[in-house]
């Protein structure tokens, strides 16, 4: 999850109040942000993904300031009218259909502030913009631009400009191949025969979203005062919110917001739109869900501490909030301001009957019985690797593979449990013998078009005299205890010593393997002790049980 690192002094300036470190820590956690670090200079907080509007110092400070009741209610942002235009050409429809734009004037830029803006832009790109897929943001020095600006798509070979930070002019395709930003985001333009770009009335390319700005007119310096901002992408609402998050942050920095006219064919849109959205709040529903009995005036007070306005069941939602989809989202904000620490916890008096799953009971009974044979229970991973599952066991198995598993030791699903136990024996060679183990675990097998999961019991006996008799004694005893009769047939299995391996069946259903492990397998696992094994399918066995446990 994204974190922001902010200067504590700056933060206090924006919040309008200085809190002690302890108080600060406490309040930040209860606002619904994860505090990672706070000292006298720096605050690092993790912002939950539903609140991208807090990904800037300004946005976070704005929310915090309300929360601690310094500046309450909906913030008023004045949007001045300008008649600068952005014309959206029909050609972008298929490639990147929407853009929303704004002009911010009278910003005092310093290197620090430029860094800050780039930082907000990047954070939004990664999170809310899903790595520029949903939204790409461009910021330009407005002084260098002549409106109207056109958003248009053309043959990439014909789009020519010097990309930001480069020396020479490149065409659209070259930008993808020859710049680092191009290579990183080329996949977002994959398969497109036209690329979208912004171009101004001087015929200067501003940028080629979502890849890169131009060096000529897309580079902010500390002489810049006024900026042009655009967000482009596929969902108008997302872009609108994204733009609002940026313009409100810049306005908090001291900038003045100017609107632009965005022209879509014969439709004209004024952007940015900072009108609050309205949502109905059902107080009864809210009180019931939270288990509270809040009066309307309390609700109003709490909502104002979250930056909303409220009047007669209608909540006015700040234009930069992107997470309010349902009234439950507002209700959570009420709970947060009410304070999670202030809820009187209770366990209701509702009569329900506890019930354990029958199969779980069955497995548990067996595990407890096996401990009586002096077998130690292990708990291994369901994931394994090909070498230990197949190669070292001298078998070929049609196993299930995982896509791009982060560890090559654990990248497939086990088809039986015995290899996991041999892995355990391998890592315990320095420990005392006998090492007699058991495990009940899930295995995964392909069955035509389905993945079948079974819970299996594996027992391995490993000591200088481990043999078939001893393992069969346990099998016998287990089946006696379960009241089941079994049949055993000779089979061939590469993992076992020929002539010392059998297949066990109950009522004609094959349920287990039993045998002594092949010395070659032992040597593959680096073992110098004999091992005898049985592996029993408990899922199948449970179906064959004459009487079921429990109800």
């Amino acid at each position: 999850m994204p974190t922001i690192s902010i200067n504590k002094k700056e933060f206090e300036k924006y919040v309008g109040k200085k809190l002690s470190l302890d108080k600060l820590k406490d309040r930040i956690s209860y606002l619904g942000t994860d505090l990672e670090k706070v000292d006298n200079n720096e605050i690092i907080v993790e912002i939950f993904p539903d609140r991208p509007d807090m990904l800037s110092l300004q946005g976070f400070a704005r929310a915090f300031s309300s929360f601690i009741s310094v500046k309450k209610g909906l913030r008023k942002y004045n949007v001045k009218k300008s008649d600068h235009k952005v014309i959206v050409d029909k050609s972008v429809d298929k490639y990147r259909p929407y853009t929303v734009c704004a002009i911010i004037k009278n910003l005092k830029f310093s290197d620090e502030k430029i860094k800050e803006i780039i930082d907000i832009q990047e954070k939004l790109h990664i999170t809310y913009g899903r790595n520029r897929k949903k939204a790409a943001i461009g910021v330009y020095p407005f002084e260098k631009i002549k409106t109207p600006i056109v958003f248009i798509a053309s043959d990439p070979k014909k789009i020519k400009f010097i990309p930001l930070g480069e020396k020479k002019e490149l065409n659209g395709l070259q930008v993808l191949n020859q710049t680092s930003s191009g290579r990183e985001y080329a996949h977002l333009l994959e398969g497109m025969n036209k690329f979208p770009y912004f171009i101004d009335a001087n015929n200067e390319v501003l940028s080629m979203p979502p890849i890169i700005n131009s060096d000529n007119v897309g580079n902010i310096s500390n002489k810049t005062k006024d900026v042009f901002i655009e967000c482009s992408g596929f969902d108008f609402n997302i872009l609108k919110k994204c733009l609002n998050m940026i313009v409100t942050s810049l306005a908090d920095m001291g900038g003045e917001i100017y609107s632009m006219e965005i022209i879509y064919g014969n439709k004209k849109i004024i952007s940015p739109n900072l009108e609050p959205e309205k949502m109905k709040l059902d107080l009864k529903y809210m009180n019931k869900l939270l288990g509270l009995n809040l009066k309307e005036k309390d609700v109003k007070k709490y909502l104002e501490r979250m930056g909303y306005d409220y009047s007669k069941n209608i909540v006015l939602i700040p234009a930069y909030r992107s997470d309010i989809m349902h009234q439950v989202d507002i209700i959570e904000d009420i709970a947060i301001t009410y304070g999670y620490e202030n809820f009187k916890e209770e366990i209701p008096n509702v009569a329900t009957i506890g019930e354990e799953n029958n199969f779980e009971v069955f497995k548990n009974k067996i595990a407890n019985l096996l401990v009586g044979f002096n077998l130690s229970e292990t708990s291994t991973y369901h994931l394994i690797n090909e070498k230990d599952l197949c190669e070292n066991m001298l078998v070929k198995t049609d196993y299930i593979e995982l896509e791009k598993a982060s560890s090559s030791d654990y990248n497939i699903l086990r088809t039986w449990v015995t290899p996991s136990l041999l892995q355990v024996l391998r890592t315990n060679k320095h420990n005392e013998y006998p090492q007699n183990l058991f495990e009940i675990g899930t295995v995964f097998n392909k069955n035509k078009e389905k993945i079948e999961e079974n819970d299996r019991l594996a027992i391995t006996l490993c000591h200088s005299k481990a043999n078939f008799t001893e393992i069969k004694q346990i099998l016998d005893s287990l089946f006696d205890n379960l009241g089941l009769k079994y049949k055993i047939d000779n089979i061939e299995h590469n993992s076992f010593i020929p002539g010392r391996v059998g297949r066990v069946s109950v009522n004609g259903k094959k349920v287990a393997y039993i045998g002594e492990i092949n010395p070659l397998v032992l040597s593959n696992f680096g073992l110098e002790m004999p091992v005898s094994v049985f592996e029993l399918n408990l899922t199948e066995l449970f179906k064959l049980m004459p009487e079921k446990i429990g109800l």
Partner: protein
Amino acid sequence: MSIKELIETLHPLERKVLPILKEDMELKKIIEKTKLKDVEAMRALQWLQNKDVLKIKQDLKEVISLDKNGEEYIKTGLPETKFLKSLTKELNFNEIKEKANLTDEEFNISLGLLKREDLIQIKNNKIKITEKGKSLKESKEEFLRKLPLETKDLGNKLIKEKIPDNFIDTLTTNILKTNSWKGKKFRRYDIKINVPKIYPAKRHFVNQSIEYAKRIWLDLGFKEMQGSKVQIGFWNFDALFTAQDHPVRDIQDTYYIKNFNGKLPSKDIVERIKKTHENGWTTGSKGWQYSWDEKEAKKNVLRTHTTCLSAETLSKLKESDIPAKFFSVGKNFRNETMDFSHGFELNQSEGIVIDKNANFKHLLGYLRAFANKMGYGRVRFRPAYFPYTEPSVEGDVYDSIRKKWIEVIAAGIFRPEVVKPLLGKDIPVLAWGNGLDRMAMGMHGIKDIRDLYKNDLKQMKNMKLWLK
């Protein structure tokens, strides 16, 4: 213990050794005379020493340790004695070495030793004997020489005693059958003696905690849910209102099964979920405002949480089943590289409460009850974000052994966008997925999450019994 009682404790081996035992007796001679095996003789001697009869073993050890230089020093005197004797006046290092006839090594060791014992003083590279040193020198005592053999008073007395040999040692079935024990004495055992350690086989310690966690939910009236570990994205994500482009669905975070898609459930439930994602359906939500893709929902994943079981349970619930409470404890999977605080398989303790009167206070109540019963007295809650709950809450418990808060609780009330499409109506469903492995780590004093499943048999042998 009286000497009589002492005699009653004597083991046959000890009785064989005792009569021939004299001062300065060597082990070799004892073996020769008693005709015991050397281990038997050693054991007898050790037992006798434990009974404070002798101090043989230690003396023998010291003789051996002095063997190399001992004989030499017995003849010529210990180097430190010679050192001290040479100090008739202040001397420098070389003078002493020469006068006392010491090697460099002997000189250095003696110097340190005498200095430490405050017997000499060093000043400007000259060495002077102290008052303490003088008095020692004059007493002519071999102050550092230890006695080669020490015989205890008790031992001397014991040797003189008449030792009867009609004690019963091992009680056999024959003795019992013939009643021949009557009128005889049993040899007394040294019940304080250390015995070789044995270890019981045990359930795996994580499974012991799982069993306990399950019992808590059963005690609270919850019914167990069970389900598969491979799940379609539909149950793991879509039914839980997790947008299809949510980063948690990225391959870097979730294990996807290669080349293997699953089957979606019945058409109407798929349709309801699709609409809920796209525009909120009839839940009163705006939805995610995108076009929902069935293909994404069919992909098989290793479940990233057991909450998928809760979603499936909701979809099967009938009106008459409500109010209802369910739990499950099981493994989840995250495509992560293992380190001390991250595992790729972890146990979660899942729960849902479906009740038209359920509320946020109840949620916190259940969560605290569970944490308390797990042995954590201090619990704190704070706001959080999950795509499928609102309000959402995270909770920490205080680990009093490691003295820190650990994050183990993730919970909330399911969003209407989750409940209504699955259940058919919007009623409160309290839900949580608590990190059980982290709690188990705290309870077993384990610092590295990898130690939970390394199956080191020595660690498992020494692990304390889960006493809850």
